[in-house]
C-alpha cells in the first residue's frame, strides 16, 4: 500500500548551517492493512519521512508509491487529489479554533466539494465512531488533549482514506489519553481496513499497536521487520530498543554462569527452566529482565544466573538451541552490556 524506494531528502544549506540530509536513502514497504511503525530518536528524520509519504515534502530523489500510484510522478494538482486518500494526524492536533468539532471534521469534505447535508451526516457518524458524538458543537479550546486528538482522527478519516499517517500522534498526551487514542487507532484500523504508518519516539507505542516497525537513525533505516519476528531475535538494534537488554541485578549472587534467554510465544521461559532445573539439576536465579505482551504475543528477555554442576550446561544449551530457543551464555568478563544503548 505504501512503498518508498531509495528516498532521499536533502534540505539546502541556509546561512551558516550546511545542507541537511534528513532522509538518506530509505526504502520502506507497508502492506495493505498493516499497522507499521517508524521509531527513532529525535532528529533521526522520522517527521520528514512521514511527510514524504503524502508529499508534504517532495523527496530530493527516489520514488513514493501509495495505493499503486507513483506520487512522485504526479503533477501538483493530482498530488492534491491523491492526498485526500491519505489521512494525517499530528502531534499538536492542528484543529482550527474557529470551527466546532463537527466543523473541523467537515473541513476536508468541504475541500472535496461534498454537499452540506452529506458533510453534516458524515461528521456526526465519525464523531460517534471516535466516541465524541456528544461534543459535536464544542470548540477545540473546550476539549481535552485526548479529545482533540480524537476529533483530529475523525477529521483524518472524513474523506474515507485508505492510508492513515500518524506523526507522533500521542506524544503530547498523558498516559491515559495515549492508551485510549492508541486503542482507537487500532479499532479504526480493523473496522475500516486502513493501512497505518505511525511515527513515534516511544517504544511503548510501537509495542502497543504496531505489527511491524523500522528503526531510523540519522536518516537511515538500521533495522526492521514484523515485531513477532524481530522480538525472537537474540540481538538486533530494533529488538534491543524494544526490549532493553537486561542488566544483572547487583544484589544477585555471584559465581556460576549467566545466561541470556529470549522469551517468545513459541519458546516460553518454562521450556528453558524445565531443561536447566529439571534435566540438568541446576539452581536458577533470575538476575534481571522482563517479559511483556507485545503485538498480542508474550515476549521478553531474561538474564538467569545458574549455579551447580555446570559440566553438562553446554550440551543442554545446544539442545535448547536445536529446539529453537534463543539462549546464550554471557561471557564471564562483563559481557552483560552486549547489545548496549538499548534504551533508545
Amino acid at each position, binding site marked *: 500500500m505504501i512503498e518508498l524506494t531509495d528516498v532521499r531528502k536533502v534540505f539546502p544549506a541556509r546561512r551558516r548551517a550546511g545542507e541537511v540530509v534528513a532522509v538518506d536513502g530509505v526504502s520502506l514497504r507497508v502492506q495493505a492493512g498493516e499497522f507499521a511503525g517508524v521509531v527513532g530518536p529525535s532528529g533521526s528524520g522520522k517527521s520528514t519521512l512521514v511527510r514524504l509519504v*503524502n508529499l*508534504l515534502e517532495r523527496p530530493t530523489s527516489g520514488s513514493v508509491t501509495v495505493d499503486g500510484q507513483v506520487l512522485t510522478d504526479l503533477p501538483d494538482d493530482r498530488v*492534491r*487529489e*491523491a*492526498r*485526500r486518500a*491519505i*489521512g*494525517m494526524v*499530528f502531534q*499538536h492536533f*492542528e*484543529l*482550527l*479554533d*474557529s*470551527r466546532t468539532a463537527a466543523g473541523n471534521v467537515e*473541513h*476536508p469534505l*468541504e*475541500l*472535496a466539494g461534498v454537499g452540506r447535508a452529506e458533510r453534516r451526516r458524515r461528521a456526526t457518524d465519525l464523531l460517534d465512531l471516535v466516541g465524541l458524538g456528544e461534543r459535536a458543537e464544542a*470548540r*477545540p*479550546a473546550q476539549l481535552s488533549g485526548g479529545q482533540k486528538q480524537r476529533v483530529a482522527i475523525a*477529521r483524518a478519516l472524513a*474523506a474515507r482514506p485508505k492510508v492513515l*499517517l500518524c506523526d507522533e500522534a500521542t506524544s503530547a498526551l498523558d498516559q491515559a489519553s495515549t492508551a485510549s487514542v492508541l486503542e482507537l487507532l487500532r479499532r479504526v484500523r480493523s473496522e475500516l481496513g486502513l493501512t497505518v504508518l505511525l511515527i513515534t519516539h516511544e517504544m511503548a507505542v510501537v509495542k502497543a499497536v504496531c505489527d511491524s516497525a523500522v528503526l531510523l537513525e540519522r536518516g537511515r533505516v538500521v533495522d526492521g521487520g514484523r515485531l513477532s519476528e524481530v522480538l525472537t531475535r537474540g540481538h538486533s538494534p530494533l529488538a534491543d530498543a524494544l526490549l532493553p537488554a537486561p542488566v544483572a541485578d547487583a544484589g544477585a549472587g555471584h559465581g556460576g554462569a549467566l545466561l541470556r534467554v529470549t522469551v517468545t510465544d513459541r519458546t516460553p521461559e518454562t521450556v528453558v527452566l524445565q531443561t536447566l532445573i529439571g534435566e540438568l539439576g541446576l539452581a536458577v536465579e533470575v538476575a534481571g529482565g522482563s517479559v511483556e505482551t507485545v503485538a498480542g504475543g508474550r515476549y521478553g528477555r531474561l538474564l538467569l544466573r545458574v549455579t551447580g554442576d555446570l559440566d553438562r550446561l553446554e550440551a543442554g544449551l545446544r539442545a535448547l538451541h536445536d529446539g529453537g530457543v534463543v539462549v546464550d551464555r554471557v561471557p564471564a568478563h562483563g559481557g552483560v552490556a552486549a547489545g548496549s544503548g538499548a534504551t533508545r
Partner: protein
Amino acid sequence: MSDWGRVYPQLFEATGETLYMVGVAALLTVLLGVPLGVLLTVTAPGGLAPRPLLNRALGLVVNLGRALPFIILLVLVAPVTRGIVGTTIGSTAAIVPLTLGAIPFLARLVETSLREVASGKVEAALSMGARRRDVVRTVLLPEARPSLVAGVTVTVVALISYSAMAGAVGGGGLGDFAIRFGYQQFRTDITLLTVVLLLVIVQLLQWAGDRWARRLAHV
C-alpha cells in the same frame, strides 16, 4: 459665548463629514488592504507561494506608504484623486488619500496576524488536499479573524486621526472644524469640545472592536 446656536449645526455637519470620510475609506481600506496583506504573507520566503522578488517589491511599496507623512501623501496623490473623483477638493476627494494612506498600514497588520496562525494548521489543510487559495480562505483568514478585527479597529482609529488633515483639501470634518473655529478664532472651548467628541468616537470604536474580536476568539 452666545454663539453656540451658530456652532452646533456646523459641529454636527463636521461630525457627519468625518464619519463619511472615515467610513468609506475604512471600507475601501479593508477591501484592498486585506488582500494586500494576504499577498505579503503568502509570497514571503517559506510562505504558501514564495515569490521573493514580488515580496520584496511589495514590502518596499508598503513601507514607502507608511513612511510618508500623511500631509505629503495628500498632496502627492492629488493627480490620482482628480483621476478618480474628478476633483481634489471636498470630503469625497479626501477619501482617496485616506484610503491610500491606510492600506499599507492595514496590510502590515494583516500580515502579522496571518503569520501568527500556526504553520501546523496550514500543513494539516494541505495534507487534506487543500489548494493554496483554500488554505487562505478556510484556514488563514478564519483563524486570524479575532486578530484581524483588532487590526481593522486600529486602522479605523488611525483613519480618524488622518482625517483631521483632510481640511487641507477642503474635506471638512472634525479636525478641520477644530482648527477653523477653535484654534484660529482663539476658542479653546470649541477646540476642547471637538477633541472630546473625537475621543468619544474613538472610544466607541475601540470598545466595539474589542467586543467583536473577543466574541470571535474561541481560545
